[in-house]
């Protein structure tokens, strides 16, 4: 039998009692995320997929500069990688909660932290932080790629397009909005995954919710198409990337991001309620 040091010293206990429980939960969840190798890979993957997609799209773009050619939106084009990068962030968000259910470890988690909504909030805080970092890097990479490659695709200053630059208010809004978009997607997915609890089903539902409404919108005509694009998380949220006015735009940039925020809030609220009322 080894010797035991006994419980923490009384003054420590007293001090801890005064600190909020949620900060310990945040640290615990942070330790969990940090000690899973997949977290690092998925964050790196998000950046790589986002910037890589933008690079491929930029390389494949050849814009004709005729007088009747439609005006392009270089900033939105540079941020196209987010379309695909969000899938990786979504997987990270799903794994944050579903892997615990898959292994049955959620019972250990809830034994250590019986306040379930605090656990969900702690996961949300960590996911927000990680997505913020990955999103900032990915968006910066996209804008840099756009600035370097788009002039070669017929979208340079010689063609009447400004270089992609954060000095433009609209570009700054699109960039910051894209990072916020990724964070809101992560939170939306976290809520869905908490409600569903199964990894495979969650990934399927989440990717379907993100990618299928735009496809459905293509298949139907107005006004259904318009309404779909206004309320679907991806099409509404990505409105924040638009920097040139276009008749195809169905919702204002910040309003679109607001719709996505409502999705995320609704999803997290539902998840919090379900987490509280269901047996673990």
């Amino acid at each position, binding site marked *: *039998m*080894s010797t*035991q*040091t*006994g*419980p*923490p010293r009384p003054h420590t*206990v007293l001090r*801890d*009692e005064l*600190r909020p*429980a949620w900060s*310990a*939960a945040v*640290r*615990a*969840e*942070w*330790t*969990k995320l940090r*000690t*899973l*190798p*997949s977290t690092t890979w998925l964050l790196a993957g998000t950046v790589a997929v986002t910037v890589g997609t933008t690079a491929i799209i930029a390389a494949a773009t050849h814009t004709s500069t005729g007088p009747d050619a439609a005006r392009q939106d270089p900033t939105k084009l540079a941020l196209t990688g987010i379309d695909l990068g969000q899938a990786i962030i979504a997987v990270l968000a799903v794994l944050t909660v579903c*892997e*615990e259910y898959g*292994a*049955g*470890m959620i*019972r*250990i988690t*809830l*034994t*250590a*932290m*019986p*306040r379930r909504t605090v656990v969900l909030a702690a996961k949300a805080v960590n996911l927000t932080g990680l997505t913020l970092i990955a999103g900032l890097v990915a968006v910066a990479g996209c804008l840099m790629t756009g600035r370097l490659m788009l002039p070669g695709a017929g979208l340079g200053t010689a063609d009447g397009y400004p270089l992609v630059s954060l000095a433009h208010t609209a570009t700054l809004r699109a960039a910051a909005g894209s990072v916020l978009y990724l964070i809101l997607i992560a939170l939306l997915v976290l809520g869905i995954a908490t409600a569903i609890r199964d990894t495979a089903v969650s990934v399927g539902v989440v990717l379907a919710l993100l990618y299928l409404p735009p496809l459905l919108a293509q298949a139907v005509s107005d006004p259904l198409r318009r309404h779909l694009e206004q309320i679907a998380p991806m099409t509404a949220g990505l409105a924040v990337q638009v920097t040139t006015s276009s008749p195809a735009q169905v919702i204002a940039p910040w309003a679109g991001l607001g719709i996505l925020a409502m999705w995320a809030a609704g999803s997290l609220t539902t998840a919090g309620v379900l987490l509280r*009322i269901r*047996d*673990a």
Partner: protein
Amino acid sequence: MNDASIEVSGLRKRFGPTQALDGMTFSVAAGTVTGFVGPNGAGKSTTIRVLLGLDYQDEGHALVCGQRYAALKYPLRRVGALVEAAALQPSRTGRNHLLWLARSQRLPTDRVKEVIDLVGLDSAARRRAGGYSLGMRQRLGIAAAMLGDPEVLILDEPFNGMDPEGIIWIRGFLRSLAARGRAVLVSSHLMGELQGIADQVVVVGRGRVLADATVDELVARAGSDRVLLRSPTPSEAAAVLQRAGARATVTDRGTVIVGGITAQRVVEVLSPAGVAFSEVTAQRASLEDVYLQLTGGATQYRAGTQVQP
């Protein structure tokens, strides 16, 4: 009984058509090891999950340290629990598993090293938990339960998958915890594992308590002890003993099972009657016998009659 470390009272819970808990009531006092036994499906794990606030009861209440578990601020400092020992995320190391638990309770990182040494897992602590044997997972689970050096320990089937050495270690460990005033609740579906360590035994079946007593009381309740008698003339010996008021049955192996009188009395009756005998053995009922007797009607899953081809 407000001083009880664990108090379970009138728990009822239904899963669809199954009444998992049907008025479960018992308590565990500080400084004791309480065995929590019953056949598979008797409601042991459900009770423990309700105790830990994982599942919600339909009726009744379950208190730890006089409070609802969910009301404890840093619960692992008060209550250590081993549930779902096999449930680990395979790519995380054992040490990191303990580390996040320590963070959740604001325990110092040093404490992780201490409990790893305590359960003898130091050689494996930095390996992926996915590669652990069931026994190693149990040790890691016990380390997690000991992290906050709690006053109450709730261990669900800690002997599962343990090698004999590990079983001996746990038994000694649990006794030493009780000796230092901790309250320990140990569930098991095998009574034999608890013999010699449990002060109190709660036997459950079909969601309710069948017996809640000390080991001695339980054994006594199993009825009077029997005496085994070997004699060259078993029928004659049986007749003599029956005349003396004892129950005596001759077995087909030529021995006599005597009930109703002590071994001492058997010798006293047979010797004057001139009946020869080669052996008189008092047979004490084991905890296992008591358990089988108690749970005979409450077993949910019973093996079918074996048919030999």
